[in-house]
């Protein structure tokens, strides 16, 4: 990260906007999806300054991206994946992947392992973030459906009593 933070924000914005267009996100949601990417990266960047390692900041940023996507998907009635992909794209370790492969091909085992480990941490971090949010949302959905079912049953019972 050679550029100062405000410039990096601009670069992230351009990159995420590019992907929103590249995947043909609906015009009305392009900016808000892009904003998700910028916010996710900013959280990752700021947390990296205060916490050690790659994994924990990446998990937290990925949890944020998933929550952002779940909330916006409900508001706009759009599939979650649309907002999630654009939000999480700045976390995808393209650089790590490239150097892992490069060092593997050049026969540089130690560097390959080092970059491979970094790439794995990012991938595992993103996966953990999705896991936490998806599981929570599913528990919530099942609970809400169950509550609605019980409520309907109670109403039927009451109607029978009155009848």
């Amino acid at each position, binding site marked *: 990260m050679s550029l100062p933070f405000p410039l990096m924000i601009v*670069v992230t914005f351009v990159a995420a906007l590019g992907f929103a267009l590249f*995947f043909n*996100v*609906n015009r009305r949601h392009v900016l808000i999806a892009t904003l998700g990417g910028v916010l996710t990266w900013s959280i990752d960047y700021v947390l990296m300054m205060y916490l050690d390692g790659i994994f924990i900041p990446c998990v937290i940023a990925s949890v944020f991206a998933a929550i952002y996507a779940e909330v916006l998907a409900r508001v706009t*009635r759009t599939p979650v994946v649309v907002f999630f992909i654009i939000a999480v794209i700045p976390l*995808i370790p393209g*650089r790590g992947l490239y150097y892992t492969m*490069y060092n593997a091909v050049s026969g540089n085992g130690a560097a390959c392992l080092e970059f491979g480990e970094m790439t794995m941490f990012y991938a595992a971090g993103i996966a953990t973030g999705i896991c936490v949010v998806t599981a929570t949302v599913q528990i919530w959905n099942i609970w809400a459906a169950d509550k609605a079912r019980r409520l309907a049953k109670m109403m039927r019972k009451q109607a029978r009593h009155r009848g």
Partner: protein
Amino acid sequence: MFSYMLDIGEAMLTSGADVHTVEYQLARMGKAYGAYKMNVLVITAVIIVTVTLPGDVEKTISRRIADEGSTNFDRLEALSKLCDECCDNPLPALELRRRLDRIKGKPFPKPFLYIGGALSAGGFAVFFGGTLLDGVVSAIIALFVCVALRYFRPITPNTIVFNFVTALAAGLLICVVAHFVSDLFVDMAIIGVIMLLIPGVAMTNATRDMLSGDTISGVMRFIESLLWATSLALGFMSALWIATFF
């Protein structure tokens, strides 16, 4: 009627939806159209639906999905809205067919593909530590990749071959440019282009699927996307290797 539902499911999958979303929407739609019970199994290669109609009549239909498709979130959103609409107020079969054809007939906006590709590749080249020059070169090569996606992708047998050939050609192009422009960091320009071809959507969906309990689809998609990523890496590495001879 139920075959139209499979068409919708197929179009959703090829536009970049995860398996869980497709299963959920198909089950809801079937019930809206009068099915007593819906049994939907979606994996990335096939959709199988068993509909139980009133009077214990059961009907099973399936659809093989051979095309991996290309991510098109606008189409996915339109299809999802169509499903929601049908669940609230089931459309007649003909109307549903007409609406589905209209959504499928809407072409991918060409300028968005090229502008988006150039912006994201350029943006990521700088994002990962490249200079502005790296970004510009990466953006120009990304335009080439977008042309390949549009015209070369439909005639390749599968994504593995496409990724390898495109990565090889893009890598060679970058090396040729680097030969004339000495300030260019080849690594950064390549990373920008890699981000464009990396199977991010497939990998994320695979993870989501595995965690939602759709293990078969998740694992299948995951292995597929690993193969795609490997062929991509091999393509670029071959280009760099060829470039060492000159």
